[in-house]
């Protein structure tokens, strides 16, 4: 019986050992902070709504390590972003650069807001110019309106 239990729990020990080995975090807190700052600007392509800093996906772990090494090599933030976009495209950046293909993405919301506000403005101005008689009375029987009488 005991042998069976041991056999059942043994894999979990092995798993634990493996997981501990797979996280090569740096001991240098400054480097670690720099790395996390950069990683929080990068999208994890496996789980696309997470940054590389947040994600536990294996690729994100690898890319964090890659960022650590690039910082250690003296690469600047811009150079690291260039390194990432050369491999994964602009999609990897949480703040994509402004260019031909991304113009709509950047100005789209503002454009929609301007459009909405202008339509609202036009409607309100037209209504303010309409005569009183163009509106339905607030009261079922206009004759009994206490403010008019």
């Amino acid at each position, binding site marked *: 019986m005991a042998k069976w239990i041991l056999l059942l729990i043994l894999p979990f020990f092995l798993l634990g050992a493996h997981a501990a080995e797979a996280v090569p975090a740096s001991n240098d807190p400054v480097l670690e902070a720099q790395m996390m700052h950069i990683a929080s600007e990068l999208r994890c*392509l*496996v789980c*696309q709504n997470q940054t590389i800093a947040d994600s536990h996906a*294996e*690729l994100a772990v*690898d*890319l964090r390590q*890659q960022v650590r090494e690039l910082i250690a090599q003296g690469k600047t933030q811009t150079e690291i972003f260039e390194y990432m*976009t*050369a*491999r*994964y*495209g*602009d*999609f990897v950046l949480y703040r994509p650069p402004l260019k031909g293909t991304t113009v709509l993405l950047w100005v789209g919301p503002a454009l929609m807001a301007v459009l909405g506000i202008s339509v609202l403005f036009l409607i309100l101005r037209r209504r303010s110019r309409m005569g009183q008689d163009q509106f339905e009375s607030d009261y079922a029987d206009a004759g009994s309106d206490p403010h008019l009488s």
Partner: protein
Amino acid sequence: MKYLKFLIPLGLFLVLVLFLGAGLHLDPKEVPSPLIGKPAPEFSLESLDSPNLTIANADMRGKVWMLNVWASWCTACREEHPALVEFGRKNVLPIYGLNYKDERVAGLMWLTNFGNPYTHSLYDRDGRVGIDWGVYGVPETFIIDQNGVVRFKHIGALTPEVIRTRIEPLVRQLNG
């Protein structure tokens, strides 16, 4: 003119439907590769089956070849594998594997079990070459031309249809 006003919300609604409809046909998991049209990233890796053999970009010069990223732990790779083995039999072009973040023994066993369509599999133990190639979802497949330029990338499992409609015509075109 005035009585047509009710068509405005309908028009807006149709535009919205159009956008949402187009959205349904886009797969956010398929990120376009910035590598298309660019020289293939440099690599120099051991062969999976013979550790003494090193394979690099230069070895492929002058040939149109395929790089298929796979791993024994990857379930979608098993899904695409029969199509790849079938394609390999036709000898259309040399197929190289990139064995991504795998154990050598597990990888070799996998090939023994499911068939080996690869001229060689490159052994990318730590996934560095994978990062250089922008790999994020195994399996991935690249076609590289005679000049070492990446011409095509497919993310996810290959299907006989993708091979027939995308890869074979491209290889024919590249080989002139």
